[in-house]
């Protein structure tokens, strides 16, 4: 008898922007029940970290899930090195509470950087039930702007920003959000998915205009099942676990400064680990 491990095989892998990969993984149990806003925990190999990745798409009948990630650290680089046909060591999910999808009226979805892909299933679901979806997406520069067409297809209005102005508005998504609110837009809800600093600023803007907002948080996580508390955040003064009570929380009540500090907890270790990893890859190639 052998240990029955699910396959977790990579079916497709595409580079969709420099250092950003889109990957379809065979995970039929997860694909069958996944909902917008949920995520998986992935371990690339037996030495790997447990990292959360938001589900971008899935197909229950074909049994696959899709993730999009930027290769910024050892874990995501290792994942990016795997090719279709190869298997991932461990994938668990779908985790987290799904996005509450309802007909709210007019909603705004803000997506920043690689997390535009994570905003896509939320925007899509909101559109499907008849909301007017206004999307704002932004990236550092035009060739890092991902999922533009997909977001276009599920949005009534789409606004684009790049930090350097190489595509769309020059500046940040938060500028566009502020502009829209200043000009009288009053959405029922704002969703924000992206870098923590972007979500903090957007949340301040939402507060200023007294609009309800939901943020999908991305803290450091280990277990993903309510056991360790690595992902704890403070919301309205209370300790909450992002893994099973989130990842979405009332943005206006998140303690953003604390979350920003917690994200820096392993900066030194991450840099050391990355340096060693890159050195090894340069000497021997991956798997060397």
């Amino acid at each position, binding site marked *: 008898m052998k240990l*029955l491990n699910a396959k977790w095989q990579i079916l497709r892998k595409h580079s969709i922007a420099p250092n950003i990969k889109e990957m379809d993984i065979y995970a039929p149990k997860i694909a069958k*029940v996944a909902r917008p806003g949920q995520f998986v925990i992935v371990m690339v190999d037996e030495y790997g970290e447990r990292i959360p990745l938001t589900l971008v798409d899935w197909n229950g009948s074909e049994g696959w899930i899709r993730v999009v990630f930027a290769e910024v650290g050892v874990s995501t680089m290792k994942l990016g090195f795997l090719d279709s046909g190869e298997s991932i060591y461990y994938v*668990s*999910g779908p*985790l987290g509470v799904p996005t509450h999808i309802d007909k709210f009226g007019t909603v705004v979805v803000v997506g920043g950087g690689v997390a535009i892909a994570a905003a896509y299933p939320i925007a899509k679901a909101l559109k499907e039930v008849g909301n007017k979806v206004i999307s704002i997406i932004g990236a550092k520069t035009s060739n890092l702007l991902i999922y533009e067409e997909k977001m276009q297809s599920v949005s009534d209005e789409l606004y684009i920003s790049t930090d350097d102005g190489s595509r769309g508005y020059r500046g940040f998504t938060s500028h566009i959000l502020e502009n829209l609110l200043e000009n009288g837009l009053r959405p029922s809800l704002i969703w924000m998915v992206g870098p923590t600093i972007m979500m903090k600023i957007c949340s301040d803007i939402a507060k200023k205009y007294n609009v309800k907002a939901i943020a999908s948080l991305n803290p450091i996580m280990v277990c993903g099942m309510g*056991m360790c*508390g690595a992902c704890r955040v403070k919301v309205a003064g209370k300790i909450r676990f992002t893994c099973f009570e989130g990842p979405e929380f009332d943005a206006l009540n998140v303690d953003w400064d604390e979350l920003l500090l917690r994200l820096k907890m392993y900066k030194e270790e991450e840099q050391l*680990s990355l340096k060693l990893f890159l050195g090894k890859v340069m000497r021997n190639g991956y798997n060397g």
Partner: protein
Amino acid sequence: MVKVKPRVLMPKRNPIERIRDFNEVTLGYSEKEALEEASRCLQCPNKPCVYGCPVGIDIPRFIKFIKERKYEEAYKLIKSCCPIPAITGRVCPQEKQCEKLCTLIRLGEPIAIGALERFVADWAQEQGIFIEPKSNVSRNGEIAIVGSGPAGIVVASDLARLGYNVTLFEALHEPGGVLVYGIPEFRLPKRIVRKEISYLIELGINIELGVLIGKTISIYDLLDEFDAVFIGAGAGHPRFLEIPGENLNYIYTANEFLTRINLMKAYLFPKYDTPIYRGRYVAVIGGGNTAMDAARSALRLGAEKVYVVYRRTRKEMPAREDEIINAEEEGVEFVFLVQPVEFIGSGEGSVSKIKLMKMILGELDETGRPKPIPTNETIELQVDSVINAIGFNPNPIIPLTTPEIKTDRKGRIIVDKEGRTTMLNVYAGGDIVIGEGTVIEAMGWGRIVAQTIHRDISTKK
């Protein structure tokens, strides 16, 4: 008065050497030591020790086999009651169970039952003793076990031996539950856990990793495919002190700290990718076994000073006596009669001080221990890392996603005496039912529930 020989002490590595690595501290009996210790057993006809064993091992009989050097017989006897003797021999609080009832206590020291159990189990692992695991009957009945910790292991192995088809679902990437994420390598080597778990696979039990029941598969969907579902999801949800500063950096829950070290192998970073902060001045809050494990792990990560901060005194500490002694020998410093009231940050978001309220002991509370009462005096402790080991609540995910399964106000799943939950064909046991117990208590529950499931399925058919 009869003079009895003193107990044969289990050899241990010396503290200065052992705090430099995560290798096992206790070394186990040699054959000679085991024979000598076994010879002390009085072979009481009424077997008081057996009543102290939650899984009912026939202790005098296995000790008699040792005396006769029939180790294989001893092993088979133990294994018929306890599927993981190499583990229970190491982590059971024998002094509170079987050994507490030993007749020898009245004449001196009790027989070292745990050490002898471990001797037999390790001997069998070394010899590669194989017990024909297959049941000679095959029964119709599909059983799902949720959680591969101590409770799940017993239910799974008992029912597999009765001939049922058993599938064990584990959310993490390694089976064993608290045995792999919680208990450190220096107390319970993971190769021992893997060996003991391999017995489950030999029994024909399917183990599915990465499946979080309640999320990947709901209890409702499990019931479509399985005749009975056993929930042994444990009490792995950490409690907080609810005081200012609790989310400062490098304040860990014991679960996170131990999971990073034990399951993710952060002590071998950067060979393994998961990092851990190696604090120089570490405070561990709590007085249980988890606190001892965390304190001793922090030492092994290179801390200069590790404090255990406890609100009562040494006498009331719930940790095993052996583990307290191990921690003391290794240089852990105990600060008694204090309760944290605030964590103070460095300005860059990391913890730098704990403010502690001095306590005095008052009347006995509902747990039978004196109640700590705050004075108005506080002291401060300089630290760069804190580990909260004050305790755990049951994991909330299954009750949250399955309202039919009722829980009490502490979040524990409510069951009848035989382990049935409020939902038909769903059973529960272990820490998710009792709160915070020991490995063997969870196993004792497992034994009871396995019998219940067997009876319920048999009467249905």
